[in-house]
């Protein structure tokens, strides 16, 4: 275990078979009893409340801001504006500082009199009660010199340009493989289609929230609703000019994130500054409308995909162009091209990104960034190809199955997609699908069946964990990870229990605090694989130390054994050759008068595990392709819809998802996560759309009443299965994340089912009743 990567065998040494079991959530009791404390729920002495006043206009200049009336209100303690915000060591307003901070947006409100987007904070009011702060914020008078905003990339005023790179420099603006233009021109089958995507908002149930407490003049604790305490700590310490360890960030419970809590947004640092200004703790929760303009969104975008194929249905060329809206400062676009380049065996590929600057805040990663909209384009076009050639949609995918990564020719570390297709088709009853589109009726309804492939990369990352094993048989396991609701608390308890050979109820697992060892952001599906591996490695460290102890202990049955001959098995150290010879760790530690022993370990996820290299300064996406294998999870979604041709409503009536995602750590929470991602995708497919006023560039439906996410009545029972997949290349646990792949391909599966039901292709998300009615009228 020193040089070669360790790999956790399910039934091998040290395991009790707990990993994979459908254990109930270990944090479930706290959550069903209301005891779980989220970031805006810490009762602190002297607590005050911060409320943002945000801009009603999308573009212009603050001519004057009058806080005098508001300041006289009872209980008001401070009003921060651009005129008096305490100075920061760094702001993201210049590109180098933005990079140092790791800020998602190259502008910090309250640092200038310029207004760049509607909803931009212009003042932060602190008062002794929430209601007083809300009222005082409404009394701040702001006079603007209003300018006409640019609304989106479609606005004729928008500057549309070809960026060198998108996604904060992680994705090239232009990629080419083979001779795509020539290959397309020479293809007997040529399909060109444009796909439109509405703005989507993550809308976790818990809005963004910060509680900031200055423990001293240069030491601050921040209870933050974030997917990564370490990243928040880094951002805050850079902006405040404080040593890292003087900024503590705590996130014990997180009310969902879906990407919007993966970065440090302006309200967080503003709250920290407000707490400094009033000398008391400040709690700030975004209101739901503010949530729409404070933590990013999935950008509005058009994609044009040209697909060339032979008459037999084999792909010859894929040419992808994406144009999307970005903010005045940043070149952010989801990397849609990644999945289009990768999913099928195709000799020629090209992708181009274009951006249009508008008066919006910067968009950000939203569950399956790039893969979700990219899969919509490729998977609808593949369906079109199947329809045009009269080939079954599943068959066309098998025909173009990629046995190795078409982007670099590398073998897959593992790929169970064929098994996923077969099992999914069987569970769904795909063979019963009518080969004709628009030909299946159930009463007055049109019925349709659709499917789509899913895939998501194993991003390169790493993290650390610490274990303190007690002689009484208990263990404290710590790492600064977060649990978005994904099940981190639960699955890591299982991994620790198996790695140490003790029962899960003997493990106390702590996360969500920068005082704990560093773990990656929970994003890009990296958490499960990285954190589980780091815990496993920490356990190996403990066993190595105990082995050393045993072989030097005259009273141990392992006295004078070679360390290399000793293995850990179910809480015991035993000889490899004779497993009856050995002892449990408790006996060993008690004899040595050791109340506890500590171990720590580093877990590598993705290419770095195979190569042994560090993941580099950035996270997800950095050096993903440096290993000898191409690392991705794959899966498939099958969907049945019922379309009402009289009013255009689409209902999902049946759903089957089958994924191959490495080792599944907990069958119950994994199933829930796939269901949840599919529902997220059904929202994206059928209802989610934030409207920007075409003149004012303000969101017109920034509420949960008008931004529709799926409700219980929208969702049928769902079937989820996993293919048993063993992948020794990706990390010590053989785990691929499932948070994102769960929604990849979902919108396409729904759209393909609608196409099958009606015979009409809708390429604009969401597929709302008006679009269905229009399509039927043609």
């Amino acid at each position: 275990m020193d040089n070669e990567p360790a790999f956790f065998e399910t039934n091998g040494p040290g395991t009790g078979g707990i990993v994979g079991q459908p254990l109930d959530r270990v944090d479930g009791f706290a959550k069903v009893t209301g005891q779980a404390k989220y970031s805006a729920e810490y009762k602190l002495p002297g607590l005050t409340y911060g409320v943002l006043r945000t801009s009603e206009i999308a573009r212009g200049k603050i001519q004057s801001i009058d806080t005098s009336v508001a300041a006289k209100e009872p209980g008001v303690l401070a009003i921060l504006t651009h005129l008096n915000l305490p100075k920061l060591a760094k702001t993201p307003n210049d590109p180098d500082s933005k990079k140092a901070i790791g800020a998602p947006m190259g502008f910090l409100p309250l640092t200038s009199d310029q207004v760049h987007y509607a909803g931009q904070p212009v003042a932060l009011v602190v008062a002794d009660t929430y209601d007083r702060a809300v009222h005082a914020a409404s009394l701040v008078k702001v006079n603007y010199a209003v300018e006409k905003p640019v609304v989106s990339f479609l606005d004729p005023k928008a500057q549309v340009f070809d960026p060198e790179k998108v996604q904060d420099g992680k994705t090239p603006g232009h990629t080419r493989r083979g001779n795509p233009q020539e290959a397309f021109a020479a293809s007997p089958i040529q399909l060109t289609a444009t796909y439109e995507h509405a703005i989507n908002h993550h809308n976790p149930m818990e809005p963004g929230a910060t509680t900031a407490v200055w423990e001293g003049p240069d030491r601050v604790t921040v209870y933050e609703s974030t997917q990564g305490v370490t990243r928040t700590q880094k951002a805050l310490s850079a902006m405040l000019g404080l040593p890292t360890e003087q900024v503590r960030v705590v996130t014990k419970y997180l009310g969902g994130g879906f990407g919007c809590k993966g970065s440090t947004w302006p309200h967080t640092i503003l709250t920290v500054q407000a707490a400094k200004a009033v000398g008391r703790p400040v709690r700030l929760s975004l209101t739901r409308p503010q949530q729409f303009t404070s933590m990013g969104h999935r950008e509005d975008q058009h994609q044009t995909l040209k697909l060339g194929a032979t008459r037999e249905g084999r792909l010859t060329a894929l040419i992808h162009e994406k144009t999307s809206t970005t903010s005045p400062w940043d070149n952010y676009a989801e990397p849609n091209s990644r999945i289009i380049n990768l999913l099928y065996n195709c000799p020629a590929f090209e992708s181009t990104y274009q951006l249009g600057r508008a008066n919006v805040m910067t968009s950000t990663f939203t569950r399956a960034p790039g893969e979700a909209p990219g899969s919509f384009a490729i998977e609808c076009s593949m369906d079109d190809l199947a329809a045009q050639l009269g080939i079954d949609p599943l068959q066309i995918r098998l025909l173009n199955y990629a046995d190795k990564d078409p982007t670099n020719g590398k073998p897959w570390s593992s790929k169970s997609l064929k098994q996923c297709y077969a099992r999914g088709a069987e569970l769904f009853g795909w063979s019963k699908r009518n080969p004709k589109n628009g030909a299946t009726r159930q009463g007055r309804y049109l019925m349709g069946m659709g499917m789509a492939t899913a895939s998501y990369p194993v991003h390169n990352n790493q993290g650390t964990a610490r274990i303190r094993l007690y002689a009484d048989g208990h263990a404290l396991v710590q790492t600064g990870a977060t649990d978005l609701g994904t099940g981190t608390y639960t699955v890591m308890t299982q991994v620790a229990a198996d790695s140490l050979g003790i029962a899960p109820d003997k493990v106390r697992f702590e996360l969500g605090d920068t005082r704990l060892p560093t773990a990656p952001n929970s994003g890009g599906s990296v958490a499960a694989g990285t954190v589980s591996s780091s815990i496993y490695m920490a356990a190996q460290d403990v066993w190595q130390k105990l082995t050393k102890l045993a072989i030097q202990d005259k009273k141990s049955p392992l006295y004078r054994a070679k360390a290399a001959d000793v293995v850990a098995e179910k809480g015991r150290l035993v000889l490899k050759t004779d497993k009856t010879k050995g002892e449990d760790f408790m006996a060993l530690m008690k004899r040595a008068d050791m109340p506890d022993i500590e171990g720590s370990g580093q877990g590598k996820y993705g290419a770095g595990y195979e190569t042994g290299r560090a993941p580099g300064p950035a996270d997800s996406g950095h050096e993903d392709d440096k290993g000898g294998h191409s690392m991705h999870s794959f899966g498939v979604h099958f969907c049945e819809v019922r379309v009402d041709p009289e009013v255009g409503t689409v209902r999902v009536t049946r759903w089957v998802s089958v994924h191959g995602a490495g080792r599944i750590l907990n069958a119950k929470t994994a199933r829930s996560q796939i269901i949840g991602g599919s529902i997220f995708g059904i929202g994206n497919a059928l209802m989610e759309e934030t409207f920007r006023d075409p003149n004012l560039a303000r969101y017109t439906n920034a509420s949960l009443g008008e931004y529709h996410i799926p409700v219980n009545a929208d969702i049928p029972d769902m079937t989820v299965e996993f293919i048993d997949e063993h992948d020794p290349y990706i990390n010590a646990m053989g785990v691929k994340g499932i948070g994102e792949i769960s929604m990849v391909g979902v919108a396409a599966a729904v759209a393909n089912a609608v196409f099958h039901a009606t015979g009409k292709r809708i390429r604009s998300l969401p597929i709302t009743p008006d679009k269905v009615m229009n399509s039927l009228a043609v």
Partner: protein
Amino acid sequence: MNLDTKGDAAGTPHNSAPEDGTRRSFIKQAGGILGLALAPPLISQAERLTAFSKTVEGVSTMTLKVNGTARTIQAEPRVSLLDALREYLDLTGTKKGCDHGQCGACTVLVEGRRINSCLTLAVMNQGKEITTIEGLAKGEELHPMQQAFLKHDGLQCGYCTPGQILSGVACVQEGHATTDDQVREWMSGNLCRCGAYPNIVAAVREVAGKA
């Protein structure tokens, strides 16, 4: 308003939709005929207000009976029941997801009936029996609905969960949990962004089956 894609929930007769002043019908009323204060549910709201018609201004003392215990707070009359629970009584199990009666995260039981605690003022709820998630279990012994949510994994992040559980308790008591489709319809006032809906249906149905 939407084209009522939700109203045509699989097989649910239209007349079984909630019309008793809960979130959905309230939004329908408010959205459709805003300002027509004579719509029936609003009359009853007004009557309730009249019952406490003494003028209250500034910070005053109010007593709320929460989970069987009378608790006294000093608060302004504009404080919602939700904020009173969270900010004045440190009962943070009741969640704020939207503060507009649109998400159901703040669902509590008042006199045994589920309401959105963000849509009512604390001062109006004096003298009423208020049950929050903290009052559902008997010590370490969980309420059957809490147990069922754990067993069926009817939660992920947990933020909508207290509201879902209290809504589920009321849903069963109302007799609105006799089929899966009925549960889907009558639990649709409680949003879950993690997408635990199928598991929530399973949990509520299990409890209904035992009731």
